[in-house]
C-alpha cells in the first residue's frame, strides 16, 4: 500500500514541477516555449481533416443546409409608407391619403409573422451556430453520425480534454488565483512608494498570464500602439467574464464593478490593496451620480490606471454589438475602444448566464479545445463639441463593430431579461397614424385643437360626401347616410 502511495506522491511531485517549469514560469515572464503553438497546429490539422470527412460524406448524401447567421428570410426594405402604398395601389379606386383601409392591416401582419420566424435580437442571446462541427459534443446540434474514424477521434478528444487538459488547467487556475490573492496582499503591506505600483502591476500581470494559460488562451493583439494609457477609459464589447483576463494580459487596468461575496469578494478585497480598483457596494450602484462622481475622480488623476468598462451591460454572443449605455461616456476623458472577437471554432466563450452558472461555465471553458481570440486596439476617441453622450456612444460602438466584424445593433442588451418598453410600440403607431392622418392639416386633424372636427366638410372620405364626421360632435351621423352604426338619431 505504501508503495502505491509513494509512487502517487512522486508522480504528483513530477507533475507539479513540470507544470511550474514548463507553463507557469514562462507565463509569468511573458515568454512562450512554443508548446501551445504545437498544440494549436495539431488541433487545426485535426479539425480540417474532420471537416473534409464530413463534407465528403454529405456530398454523397446531398445534404444542404442553410446558414443561419445572415437571417433566414428575405424582407422588404421599404419603409412603412412605401409598402402600404404598394398594397393600396393594387386597388382600382385610388385612395387619397388620409384613409384607413383594411389592407393596411396586412402590412403589419406580415411584419409580425416575419419577426416571429426570425428576428435580429433573440438570436444574440444564445451561442453562435457553427458552420462545421469542431468535435465537441456540446456543439453537435445537427451533425449526424459520419464514420467510425471520426467517432474515434471524437472519443480521443473527449479523453484528452477531460483527463489531461482539464486537470492541468484547473491546477493552473488555482495557482493563478492563489498567487493573485497572496501577491496583492503582500504588495498591499508596503507603504506608498513608487516601487509599489510597479510591483502590483507585475503581480497582476503574472497572475492573469497564468490564468490565461489556465484556459489555453491564444490571444493576438493588434495595433498595440493604441494601447490604453493611464487616466483614460477603456471600453470593449462584452462576451464573457473571461474578457477581463484577455485584456489584462497585456497591461494592467483598474476594474470597475460591484462588490461580491465569497471567492470573488476575497479577490476583490486583496486586489484593491495593491492598486486602486473601483468597487461599488450594491446600494451605491443605484445612485448614478455617486457612481459617476467616483469614476470622474479616478479619471481626473492622470497617473491612475485606465478604467475598464463594458458599456453593453450584459454578455452578448460575440456576433453583434448591442446598445452602449451612455453613462460611461458622460464621464469625460479619453475613450480607448477595444474590439474583442473570439474564434468559435475552438471553444465557445459566450456566457449564457440564464443557462449556466459561473462554475459550470468555467468548467466548460476548461474542457474546450482552446480559447482563441483577436484583440484590436482602436485609436482613442473623444467627445466632440456639442455631441451628446448617446451619439458619442453609438459612434464608438460603430467603430468597434466595424473593426471586429460584428453586426451593429441599436437594441438594448437588457432585452435579454426585460421586455421591450411600450414606447417602441407607440412609435410604430405614431408613424402609421401620421400617415393616415397626415402631418398637415388637410387630413382629419383640423386647425382647431379638438382634432376631430375639420373646418370644412371634407373630413375623412375624400371631398365628395360631406364626410362621416360632420359638424356636430356625435360624430357619426351625417345628413344623407344615417345609421351605419344604427344611431338612428337625426343630425
Amino acid at each position, binding site marked *: 500500500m505504501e508503495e502505491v502511495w509513494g509512487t502517487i506522491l512522486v508522480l504528483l511531485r513530477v507533475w507539479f514541477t513540470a507544470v511550474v517549469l514548463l507553463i507557469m514560469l514562462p507565463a509569468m515572464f511573458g515568454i512562450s516555449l512554443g508548446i501551445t503553438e504545437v498544440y494549436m497546429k495539431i488541433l487545426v490539422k485535426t479539425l480540417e481533416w474532420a471537416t473534409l470527412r464530413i463534407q465528403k460524406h454529405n456530398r454523397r448524401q446531398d445534404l444542404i443546409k442553410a446558414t443561419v447567421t445572415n437571417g433566414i428570410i428575405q424582407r422588404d426594405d421599404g419603409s412603412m409608407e412605401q409598402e402600404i402604398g404598394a398594397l393600396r395601389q393594387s386597388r382600382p379606386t385610388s385612395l387619397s391619403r388620409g*384613409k384607413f383601409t383594411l389592407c393596411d*392591416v396586412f402590412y403589419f401582419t406580415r411584419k409580425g409573422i416575419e419577426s416571429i420566424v426570425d428576428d435580429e435580437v433573440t438570436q444574440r442571446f444564445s451561442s453562435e451556430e457553427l458552420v*462545421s462541427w469542431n468535435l465537441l459534443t456540446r456543439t453537435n446540434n445537427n*451533425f449526424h453520425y459520419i464514420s467510425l474514424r471520426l467517432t474515434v477521434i471524437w472519443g480521443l478528444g473527449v479523453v484528452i480534454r477531460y483527463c489531461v487538459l482539464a486537470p492541468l488547467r484547473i491546477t493552473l487556475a488555482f495557482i493563478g488565483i492563489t498567487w493573485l490573492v497572496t501577491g496583492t496582499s503582500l504588495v498591499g503591506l508596503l507603504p506608498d512608494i513608487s516601487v509599489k505600483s510597479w510591483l502590483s502591476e507585475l503581480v497582476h500581470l503574472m497572475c492573469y498570464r497564468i490564468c490565461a494559460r489556465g484556459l489555453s488562451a491564444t490571444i493576438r493583439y493588434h495595433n498595440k500602439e493604441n494601447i490604453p494609457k493611464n487616466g483614460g477609459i477603456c471600453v470593449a464589447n462584452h462576451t464573457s467574464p473571461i474578457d477581463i483576463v484577455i485584456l489584462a494580459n497585456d497591461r494592467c487596468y483598474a476594474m470597475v464593478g460591484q462588490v461580491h461575496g465569497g471567492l470573488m469578494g476575497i479577490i476583490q478585497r486583496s486586489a484593491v490593496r495593491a492598486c486602486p480598483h473601483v468597487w461599488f457596494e450594491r446600494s451605491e450602484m443605484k445612485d448614478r451620480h455617486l457612481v459617476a462622481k467616483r469614476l470622474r475622480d479616478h479619471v481626473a488623476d492622470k497617473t491612475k490606471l485606465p478604467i475598464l468598462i463594458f458599456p453593453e451591460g450584459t454578455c452578448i454572443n460575440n456576433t453583434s454589438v448591442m446598445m452602449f449605455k451612455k453613462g460611461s461616456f458622460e464621464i469625460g476623458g479619453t475613450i480607448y475602444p477595444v474590439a474583442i472577437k473570439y474564434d468559435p471554432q475552438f471553444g465557445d466563450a459566450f456566457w449564457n448566464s440564464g443557462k449556466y452558472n459561473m462554475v459550470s461555465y468555467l468548467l466548460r471553458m476548461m474542457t474546450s479545445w482552446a480559447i482563441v481570440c483577436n484583440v484590436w486596439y482602436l485609436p482613442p476617441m473623444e467627445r466632440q463639441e456639442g455631441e451628446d453622450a448617446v451619439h458619442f456612444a453609438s459612434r464608438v460602438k460603430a467603430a468597434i463593430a466595424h473593426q471586429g466584424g460584428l453586426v451593429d445593433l441599436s437594441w438594448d442588451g437588457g432585452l435579454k431579461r426585460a421586455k421591450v418598453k411600450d414606447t417602441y410600440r407607440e412609435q410604430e*403607431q405614431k408613424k402609421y397614424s401620421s400617415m393616415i392622418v397626415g402631418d398637415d392639416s388637410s387630413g382629419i386633424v383640423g386647425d382647431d385643437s379638438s382634432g376631430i372636427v375639420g373646418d370644412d366638410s371634407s373630413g*375623412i372620405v375624400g371631398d365628395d360626401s360631406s364626410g362621416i364626421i360632420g359638424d356636430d360632435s356625435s360624430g*357619426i351621423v351625417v345628413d344623407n347616410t344615417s345609421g351605419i352604426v344604427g344611431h338612428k338619431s337625426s343630425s
Partner: protein
Amino acid sequence: MGTLFSAPDDHFQDLSEKTGFSPEQIQILHKRFKQLSNEEDLLRRDDFNNIPDLACNPIRTQIIEAFFDKRNFRQNAVGSVEEISFEQFVVVMSHFRPVPLHNMTEEQRERMRREKLRFLFNMHDTDNDGTITLEEYKHVVEELLSRSGAIGKETAKGIADAAMLEVASITVGRMNPEDFYEGITFDHFLKILKDIEIETKMHIRFQNNACALC
C-alpha cells in the same frame, strides 16, 4: 448538449407534406420554435412577447392570438388554446408559406387566396360569429392608431365608421336609411379585397443562400 445521432427526419417529412414547407424550412422553423420556447416542447403566449420586433408591432396581440386560435389549425375546431406544439405552430405558419405561383392552376390560386384571407378574417373576427362587426373593426383601428395619443379615441372611432361605410357601399350598394349594417361577412371581405394580390404579398420568403455543410 446535442447528440451524436440526430433526431429522425421522418417526422419532419410528414409535416413537410402536410403543410407544404420544404424539409429544410421545417428544420429552420423547428430551431426557431426551440429558441422561442426555451428548449421546451410547447409554446406559450408569453414566449412571443420576448421578440422585440414583434413587441413594436401595433397589432401584435391579434397576431399572437392567431397562433392559439383553433380555427387556424385546419381541424375545423373553434376556441383557443393556451399552448401549442411545434406541429400546430407550423400549421399556422403554413398560411404564409412561400408559394410557387407559376406552377399553380387557377383553382389552386383561388384556394390559396381564400385560405390566406380566411386567416386574416379570423384575426379580426374574434368572437367567431362569421362577421366582423363595427366593434371588432373599431378595435383593430384603435390598436393601430389611438394608443399613441396622437389620435384621440373619437377620431379612431370616426375612422372606423368611415371605413365601414365604404365597405358597405362596395358590398351592399346603396342602402336605405333604415338598413342596419351588421358587419363584414367573409364574402364581403373577399369582395373588398379581390383586387389585392394577396398571394404575393402575404408570404414569407426564405432566403436561398444555402451552402453545403462543410
